[in-house]
């Protein structure tokens, strides 16, 4: 846990955001509604390669909805639709009819709030994504499983019991297994929906450490209720309130000197 707190204010400022790099994800003036209930109002936001973006805000502010828009998990909800604006990844509109949502979800992985490994062996869990893609070669799968578990810092703990049921693992291990499972399909972007909300502080520390390690390779978007956590792991933070993006800036700026009064009130615990 101690290492995770070492993120210095300077580390944010050296990010290559301003040096003309194209954003990975570009959200443009997005309106989103569940039926007649509009939950997002004109959100515009760019997320850059290899940064950790944190979404914070009180419950019901639309931050999870926005996250689930990024890999179109909202398609599963009846009547949920984008009413205005667009989301683009590398300039490709996600909601274009020609987009294959399966390909999209392979590139944009997701880790859920509740760790939900399949009731299978640890190995089977990680191999699942490869198997449904039709990878038959045992050697290739073995290799990928080990690689993913190593990246998720779980290999050392489970290498001797790969064939045991995943539900024999502790909560934190299960969540890291879910991350490993996501890594195995080689995504470019990883979305995390409150990944630590069900974990104890030690397990949370391990996951946070993992996130910081992963950002060298992946673009990560994290939704969190825990503002300290946002402070510890994210490069930039977006604050949402009642479906609107109030402020998005470097994390240290948001936490030390926010532009908006609402942000300051939320950060300092006056509401939420």
């Amino acid at each position, binding site marked *: 846990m101690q290492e995770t707190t070492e993120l210095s204010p300077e580390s944010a400022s050296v990010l290559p955001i301003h040096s003309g790099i194209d954003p990975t994800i570009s959200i443009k003036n997005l309106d989103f509604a569940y039926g007649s209930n509009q939950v997002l109002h004109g959100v515009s936001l760019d997320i850059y390669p290899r940064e950790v973006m944190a979404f914070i805000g009180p419950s019901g502010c639309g931050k999870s909805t926005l996250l689930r828009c990024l890999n179109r998990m909202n398609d599963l909800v009846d009547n949920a639709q984008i009413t205005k604006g667009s989301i683009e990844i590398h300039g*490709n509109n996600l909601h274009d009819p020609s987009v294959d949502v399966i*390909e999209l979800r392979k590139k944009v992985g997701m880790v859920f709030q509740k760790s939900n490994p399949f009731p299978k062996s640890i190995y089977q869990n990680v191999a699942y994504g490869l198997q*449904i893609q039709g990878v038959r070669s045992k050697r290739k799968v073995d290799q990928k499983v080990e690689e993913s578990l190593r990246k998720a810092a779980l290999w050392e703990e489970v290498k001797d019991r790969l064939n045991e049921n995943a539900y024999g693992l502790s909560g934190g291990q299960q969540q890291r297994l879910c991350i490993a499972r996501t890594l195995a399909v080689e995504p470019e972007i990883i979305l995390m929906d409150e990944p630590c909300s069900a974990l104890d502080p030690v397990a949370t520390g391990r996951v946070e450490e993992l996130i910081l390690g992963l950002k060298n390779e992946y673009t990560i978007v994290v939704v969190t209720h825990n503002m300290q956590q946002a402070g510890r792991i994210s490069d930039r933070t977006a604050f949402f309130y009642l479906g609107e993006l109030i402020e998005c800036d470097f994390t240290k700026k948001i936490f030390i000197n926010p532009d908006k009064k609402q942000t300051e009130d939320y950060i300092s615990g006056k509401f939420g």
Partner: protein
Amino acid sequence: MKPNQDNPFKARLSREKFTENLIFGLLRGVTFFVLFCAAYLFWDIFSKGAGKVFEGEGILNWEFLTDDPQTLHVLNEDGVEQRLSSKKYYALKDEKTLKRWNEFLAGSTYEFCQQKIKEAFSALEKEWQAEELEKMVQSFVAAEKDRLVNKFGFWKDLLSDTKATAVDFEVPEAEVSAMVSGYFLGHLNQESNRLALVKSEITRFRATHYPTIEKLNVENLQSLEEAYRTFLNQIAEPYRSSLSSFSDEITTTYQKFLDANGPKEFGHFKEALIAYGQVREVVITDSAESSVWKFIQSALKPFEEAVSVSLPSTDYAYSGGGIFPAIVGTLLLVIGAMLIAIVLGVFCAIFLAEYGKSGRFLSLVRLAILNLAGVPSIIFGLFGFGLFVIFLDWNVSLLAGWFTLAFMVLPVVITASEEALRSIPQGFRESSLALGATKWTMIKTSVLPYAMPGILTSSILGVARAAGETAPIMFTAAYAKRSELPWEGLENWTDFFFQGVMALPYHIYVVSAKIPQNAYTADMQYGTAFVFLVLVLGVASLSILLRNRLRKKYRW
């Protein structure tokens, strides 16, 4: 921005997509098939049943609801059909008789009588037209000729068979010759009896109607008499001639035979019986031949009676032997019905739980399926009889029984499977989709396997019900008695599905309700019931074991 050429998310025209659509189509198809059958069931009963209850003059057919069962009398007067129950029929009859009696008394008597009798006679004349009589006579004579020729031919064959074989024991010549002439005489007697019957029929006709005819002095009397004479002659003449030629011929043959072979070789009726047994094996289907067969049987009866031993016994039907065909039949019925029910039910449940968008239509579908669960089993029997046995022309068969039973347990299976599918955590679905699974892959790999224990639990209930119900199989699949096992005597493999079987519940019903009761049937029915219970328990235990194994495998 337009998606560029190398858009990594561009839709693929892959096989996966095709499979996806195919599966969706299949699931929807099955669901609509089940719905169609449910609709057919309700429509069939409502359209036909309501017609019965609401027919008649008033809005409601009260008689149908309040009367006891009676014979129906369908009157056909001047092309108008009128249906009357016994009560109404006799009331109407009494009324009309009274009316006619009054008319009769009221009219000027003699003329009126003449008129009435004339009418009666012309009606009778229509029935007994000369043409008809001729036809009758001709066919009778033709049949008679055939019989006599066949009779003789067979006898010749039999004799030549007999003489070819070795002598084992002897029978007094006189006895055999008495036997031979005895059964021919017997047969001829029979024929003359028949003739006498025709004669008496005509005499009766004459006795009843001649007085009135003579009295009335009708001009057609002559023609009727003529017809009658021709009739008699036509029958009698060929009969007489064949009788004489026949007796000549038989005497000659007999004499020749005796001369050629001597008295020693004549007496083996053991060989005759063997020949008879061989003839018996031949299956004769043609109707002309079957009359030959009947003759052979009657001709050889004296032989058979001479050797057969009769035991003093009283017979009790269905009280001996075993129930193996019924056990096999029940197992087959249950297994087939459950397979169909689970396949259709799970397809339906997947469509409802995973693909169906919640809305008014879907709740209507669910309502229909739940209602199906409340339909009494006898109505499923009627439905299966109407749809599978009659309409699809499957007759009383395994296939019809399977589908009828499957439809009976289908509501339970669908409802419970849907529950089982819904109880799978949403997280499994989301994780699977988030890892790039298509919808069907998601269902196949991360929903269905985990829902299987729940689905099997529901199917256990179904097994007990499918095995236990008598009513649905009564008209669709069950035979009261069938000695062959289902795999015996099949000409080609499809016949397997189109044969009726015995079933334990139906056997219990037959033994306890359809035949005379005695001390031996009680054992039988309770024995069957016991085996039945054990069998159902066994099948259910197997499913429970399977379910527990699966549960152990998938727990979360």
